[in-house]
């Protein structure tokens, strides 16, 4: 016991006190030093704080260098991951593109059909004059919401022309000078635009609220209940000033549709206008012209072609469906016939075997019967040299009624 305690003390002393080769400090000394460092650090000792700051400076800078290779690896890994992700998204986009292409085709058909029907009811307007103008004055008066643009009668601008920003209606021309024009914005209280509210196609008049939005008038009693999030307000085309279907604004889902004056959120910010398009619309009067006829024919041909393609596609799909069904039926019948054939073959083999057995039995009976009658004529005795019983020659002799020699 004494010896083992001595060993323990010696081992501990050797481990903690003895300085190894090339060691300048003993382990215990450094342990004490770190404890002192810890205690003084917790009391914010000035020298320790200075040491801390210098160590931090060294560590942060060298950590950046040491982390270099890892950062390179990480960057490359991220790059590879990005490439893989790009490839996956590319495949998804390709699929989406295919879907969109097919949708676009049907949309083209609908557009062409729409144009054709509009022409039939004589409601097809085309832009016959589009002038791009720059907004010169945008004075935000509380009494009049209007802007002045740098195009006037010199540029064929006329009273009542529609003014668009992109494809959104923002107002109409109310004053034309030689070089300039005034545009009354949709938000002005005097602006009255005939509009249609989608999707229920309710007709109304939109007036400005004198600030930034519009209000709907003359919709009393109209059923505006809608499950969609928001309703879209477009020009109705009534009055023939604007063509129908120009986007104006939206009615938010949060709006109370039971009130008499609904607020319309105009798509464009009317305080941020810079360039506008002044446009007039006219009916397509050249319907009966030769070129229009050609165009119409061409359009018809296009519709017909697309419809034909669709029809062909449908027929092909039907044919494919029928062919698949027929193939499945044939395969089914084939398997049934195979089963039947197998069963018949098995039966035939059984029958053949039973026939063979019967023939053998018959032969045996015939032999036994003849043996009773003619056996003595063929049997070998000590007096004759006939055949031994049981041999094939004896059997032949019996079958030939004793005449076999």
């Amino acid at each position: 016991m004494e010896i083992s305690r001595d060993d323990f003390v010696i081992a501990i002393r050797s481990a903690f006190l003895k300085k190894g080769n090339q060691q300048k400090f003993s382990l215990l000394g450094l342990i004490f030093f770190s404890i002192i460092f810890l205690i003084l650090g917790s009391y914010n000792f000035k020298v320790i704080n200075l040491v801390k700051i210098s160590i931090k400076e060294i560590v942060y800078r060298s950590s950046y260098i040491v982390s270099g290779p890892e950062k390179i690896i990480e960057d490359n890994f991220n790059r590879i991951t990005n490439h893989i992700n790009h490839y996956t998204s590319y495949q998804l986009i390709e699929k989406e593109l295919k879907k969109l292409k097919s949708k676009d085709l049907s949309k083209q058909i609908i557009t062409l059909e729409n144009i054709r029907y509009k022409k039939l009811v004589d409601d097809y307007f085309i832009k016959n004059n589009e002038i791009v103008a720059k907004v010169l004055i945008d004075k935000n008066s509380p009494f009049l919401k209007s802007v002045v643009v740098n195009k006037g009668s010199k540029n064929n601008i006329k009273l009542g022309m529609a003014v668009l920003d992109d494809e959104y209606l923002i107002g109409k021309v109310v004053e034309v000078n030689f070089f300039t024009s005034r545009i009354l914005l949709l938000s002005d209280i005097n602006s009255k635009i005939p509009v249609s509210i989608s999707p229920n196609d309710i007709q109304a008049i939109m007036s400005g609220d004198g600030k930034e939005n519009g209000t709907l008038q003359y919709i009393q009693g109209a059923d505006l209940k809608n499950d969609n999030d928001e309703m879209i307000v477009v020009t109705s085309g009534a009055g023939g000033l604007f063509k129908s279907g120009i986007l104006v604004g939206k009615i938010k889902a949060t709006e109370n549709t039971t009130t008499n004056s609904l607020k319309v959120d105009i798509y464009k910010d009317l305080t941020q206008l810079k360039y506008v398009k002044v446009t007039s619309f006219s009916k397509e009067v050249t319907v009966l012209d030769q070129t229009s006829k050609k165009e119409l024919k061409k359009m018809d041909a296009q519709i017909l072609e697309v419809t034909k393609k669709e029809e062909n596609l449908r027929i092909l799909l039907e044919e494919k469906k029928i062919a698949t069904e027929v193939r499945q039926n044939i395969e089914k019948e084939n398997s049934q016939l195979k089963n039947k054939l197998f069963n018949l073959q098995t039966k035939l083999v059984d029958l053949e075997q039973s026939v063979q057995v019967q023939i053998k039995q018959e032969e045996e009976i015939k032999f036994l019967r003849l043996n009773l009658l003619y056996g003595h004529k063929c049997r070998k005795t000590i007096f004759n040299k006939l055949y031994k019983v049981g041999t094939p020659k004896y059997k032949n002799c019996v079958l030939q009624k004793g005449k076999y020699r």
Partner: protein
Amino acid sequence: MNGLRKNYISSVLFKYFPLILLFVSIMNDFNFNDLELRYFSFNFSYILIFYYTLKRREALGYVSLFVAGLFNDVIIGLPMGISSLLFLLLCGLASYLRNITLTPNLFKDWIFFLITLLILNSLSYISLVLIFEYDIDHMNSIVNTFFTFIFYFFFTYIFHFIENFFIGFRNAE
């Protein structure tokens, strides 16, 4: 001349490899102690120090361990000196094991490493929570101790392989 230079480089590498590895593992952004996995982390420095103190004590100087501990504290954000204390204690306990062992045995080393880990982590937990008022998730500490213990076995083979590689390389020259 070329052979001499190669020999010199390999001997320097052999000598300072554990030290370089220790400092790189401490100063790298990639931290084994925080792998962003809920129940997986291990203390690579402990494994390295314990292994090399047993195998080749002169490879990791006491002063280097002290400095490495200070660096570790700065990187992790612990009170300065606590990692140094733990590293040095680990080194001392490993030296004690080496002194009392005549024939080294991996299994015995492994078990002793577990005891050492439990002592060090308890010490660290007590000092950080009770003295420095740090919030430490004890579950994370337990997981860390467990995986450090488990991984010691694998890293022993890896370090052994590397040591043999260096020795083989030097002998070949």
